[in-house]
């Protein structure tokens, strides 16, 4: 039996968490002598008040959708992939190699090839920890985290060495060819003299992200593999009994997860930077964990949570520029949101559950009439089954 209605689980609990995070943020802003209401208005206006605000917000949201989906898919198999950061970085390497060394006549072909490169690279980066987990029992959290450092070190080496064009000072690859430039929102949504999304990085990858979200939904809830992944995630014993091999589940879920994280590179590396730069992922891999937690591992939830974090990212940036509130304050606000929606989720969830249980109990007791449920109703389902 569900402890509370679905809408409360999906909307009410995150909303309360968010409100708590906002309240504490407000207190902190008050404490440094600024006006929290003013700060909120600036943030919202900066993120959503203009198409250029939207252009950044959706760009960040695209990153977070990819990494959020990555964390969710793995989590359905109860694999905690915290290596999204490294997988996305290596995904960038995959994109760069494809675009630098293969000539493309048109951006659409380049995009498809870059997607393939990004997914393969990200998948490979997740495959090693997965196989170590499946065969050796090395804990996935530890290995994926360490692989983040390895990815960073590898890119460091490549970007100051082999991949850096001679004669430049920047630690980056050469720029990608002009023909591989994918349409930005500005290209797509400006008509005649009306130029929208001016100077913003949002690009066609946003729609790829939405498509990915739909495909993840299909995978998890409509395919046999998704059924097996969920069965394995809920109960390893039942999966074993049903002939669902643990190794296969761990490896497949992690490889798909890595591919999704890697795919983020078409947004930042291909769509925005148009070359592979140092630290291109900017923590989006970690934000993905919070996004998945807040989105309750459902693609729709992930997209909404990604949008929220996109707003926070963009609005926070504006706040740092327009007010005396130091940039670091943004990090505090984001941390509070992650803390309340992710780590402290249960703190909000339990009282809400109790509230609903009490309401339901009252509703169950109140209707008068023959109080002999034993007569018609079958056994009390979901019995307290106090039998331990």
């Amino acid at each position, binding site marked *: 039996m569900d402890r509370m209605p679905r809408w409360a689980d999906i909307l009410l609990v995150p909303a309360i968490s968010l409100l708590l995070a906002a309240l504490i943020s407000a207190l902190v802003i008050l404490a440094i002598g600024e006006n929290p209401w003013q700060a909120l208005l600036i943030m919202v206006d900066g993120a959503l008040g203009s198409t250029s605000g939207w252009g950044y917000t959706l760009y960040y949201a695209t990153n977070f959708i990819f990494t959020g989906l990555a964390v969710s898919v793995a989590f359905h198999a109860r694999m905690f992939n915290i290596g999204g950061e490294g997988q996305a970085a290596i995904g960038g390497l995959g994109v760069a190699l494809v675009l630098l060394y293969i000539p493309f006549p048109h951006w659409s072909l380049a995009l498809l090839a870059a997607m393939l490169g990004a997914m393969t690279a990200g998948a490979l980066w997740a495959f090693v920890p997965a196989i170590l987990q499946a065969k050796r029992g090395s804990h996935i959290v530890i290995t994926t985290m360490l692989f983040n450092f390895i990815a960073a070190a590898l890119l460091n080496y490549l970007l100051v060495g082999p991949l850096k064009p001679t004669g430049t000072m920047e630690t980056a690859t050469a720029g990608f060819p002009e023909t591989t430039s994918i349409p930005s929102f500005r290209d797509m949504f400006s008509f005649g003299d009306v130029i929208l999304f001016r100077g913003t990085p949002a690009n066609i990858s946003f729609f790829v992200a939405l498509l990915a979200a739909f495909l993840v939904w299909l995978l998890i809830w409509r395919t046999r593999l998704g059924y097996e992944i969920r069965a394995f995630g809920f*109960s390893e*014993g*039942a999966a074993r009994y049903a*002939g*669902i091999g643990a190794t296969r589940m761990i490896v497949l879920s992690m490889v798909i997860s890595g591919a999704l994280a890697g795919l983020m590179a078409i947004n930042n590396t291909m769509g925005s930077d148009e070359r592979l730069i140092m630290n291109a992922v900017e923590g989006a891999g970690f934000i993905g964990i919070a996004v998945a937690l807040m989105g309750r591992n459902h693609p729709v939830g992930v997209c909404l949570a990604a949008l929220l974090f996109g707003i926070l990212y963009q609005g926070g940036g504006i706040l740092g520029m327009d007010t005396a509130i130091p940039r670091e304050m943004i990090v505090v606000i984001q941390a509070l949101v992650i803390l309340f929606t992710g780590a402290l989720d249960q703190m909000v969830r339990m009282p809400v559950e109790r509230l609903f249980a009490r309401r*339901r109990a009252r509703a169950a007791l109140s209707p008068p009439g023959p109080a002999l449920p034993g007569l018609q109703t*079958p056994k009390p389902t*979901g*019995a307290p089954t106090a*039998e331990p």
Partner: protein
Amino acid sequence: MANPSIELRGISKSFGPVQANKDISIRVMPGTIHGIIGENGAGKSTLMSILYGFYKADAGTILIDGREVVIPDSQSAIRAGIGMVFQHFKLVENFTVLENVVLGAESGPLLRPSLARARAELRRLADEYELDVDPDARIEEIGVGMQQRVEILKALYRDARILILDEPTGVLTPAEADHLFRILRNLEAQGKTVILITHKLREIMDVTDTVSVMRRGEMVAHFETARTSPAELAEAMVGRKVLLRVDKRPATPGAPVLEVQDLRVTDAKKVERLKGVSLTVRAGEILGIAGVAGNGQSELLEVLGGYMKATGSVRVKGVPQDLSRDDQGQARRDAGVGHVPEDRQSEGLVLDFAAWENVCLGYHDRRPYSGSLLMDLAAMRRDADAKMGRFDVRPHDPLLAAKSFSGGNQQKIVVAREIESAPALLLVGQPTRGVDIGAIEFIHKQIVSLRDAGVAILLVSVELDEILSLSDRIAVMFDGRIMGEREAGQTDARELGLLMAGITEPAGRAA
């Protein structure tokens, strides 16, 4: 007349909309053994949890020796003289018996004096109640029967005058159960009050003085044990007449379906769990495997079910099976092996899945569930709906999560799935563990009619009664080996009990 040792008046307790205990009143006199019997989910354990301070009753009072007490936590329960022996022991595995007994009842900050005092006390209790255990043995090294005695000693060491045992014989051999009952009678003779919670009618008849029957959260009847019968108790438990015996015709075995040769399994700790098991099951017969839990039965089922590696040979309908891998569950199903696993909660069902998602577990790659690319959810739901109807699963709601069904109905979902996949061989592990009487009757009937339809059935159960009433042939497992095989009609509980304890009598002397 003396005060009752323990008296409950009007105890009620609800969990959300479910009323687990409804206006329960009960009186137990000192120096008696009182049984509480009822099906799973009848509210027995909730009631005991209230007595032990785990739950707070919504209404009602508890009186100990005629005085009203409030029991907000287990410490207060212990102080009031209540001792509890849980179904799942609460012992520290790598502590010694002595350390476990003292844990939580140390007399001061220094351990040594407490241990010395406990050692003396343990010796006294051992003499008085036949409760002999080695105080220096580690818990992980002693058997379950011993561990249970440690639990009883723990309670007595804390001066319990009222001892409550929750399903105490589930893990014991018949001999160990007899020993336990002797201990209980000794306790009774010393004026202690014993409350025995069980679903086994025979134990109630054997050992109690008085008995109360619970059904759906209510106390429906009280009896003096001497003046009642198993049939009357069963009827009170279920609320209608039940058939306690299984009606079945003699078997007409056909060709061998399952042939097992020299099966060996070594676990991760390099302990050999199966030590060369060989057996055959023919079409249209039930081979029962008796034995105390933990003697290799689980491993046998897992190997046959395709999810444990082994050496040796297994043939199903003459076809050799791959024993070198542990992900052969689907291959076994394709070979015609159905499997009702021992533990429906951790194996047979994905508890967080809805019933409809569970009804195809293990068969999810087949039509109609799985099309070329996507699963056919509508077909899965229709199929679940039909099976739940045919097997009378209640509530008949395919959308409900598996964890929300009672034990008996969960088991019916598993049995429906495995029987309706039309297996040639059905593996059945503990089919009625934690299942109410009504469902037991139903499940037994299903197994027998499957046999009559020509299916080979391998039945593993720790309930000797179940083995005796269902099987056509009986093999007894002990320590990873088959100790002996008997025709069902030509053996009895006593002989099987000896085999279960690893004692083989010279052939011929067995009556």
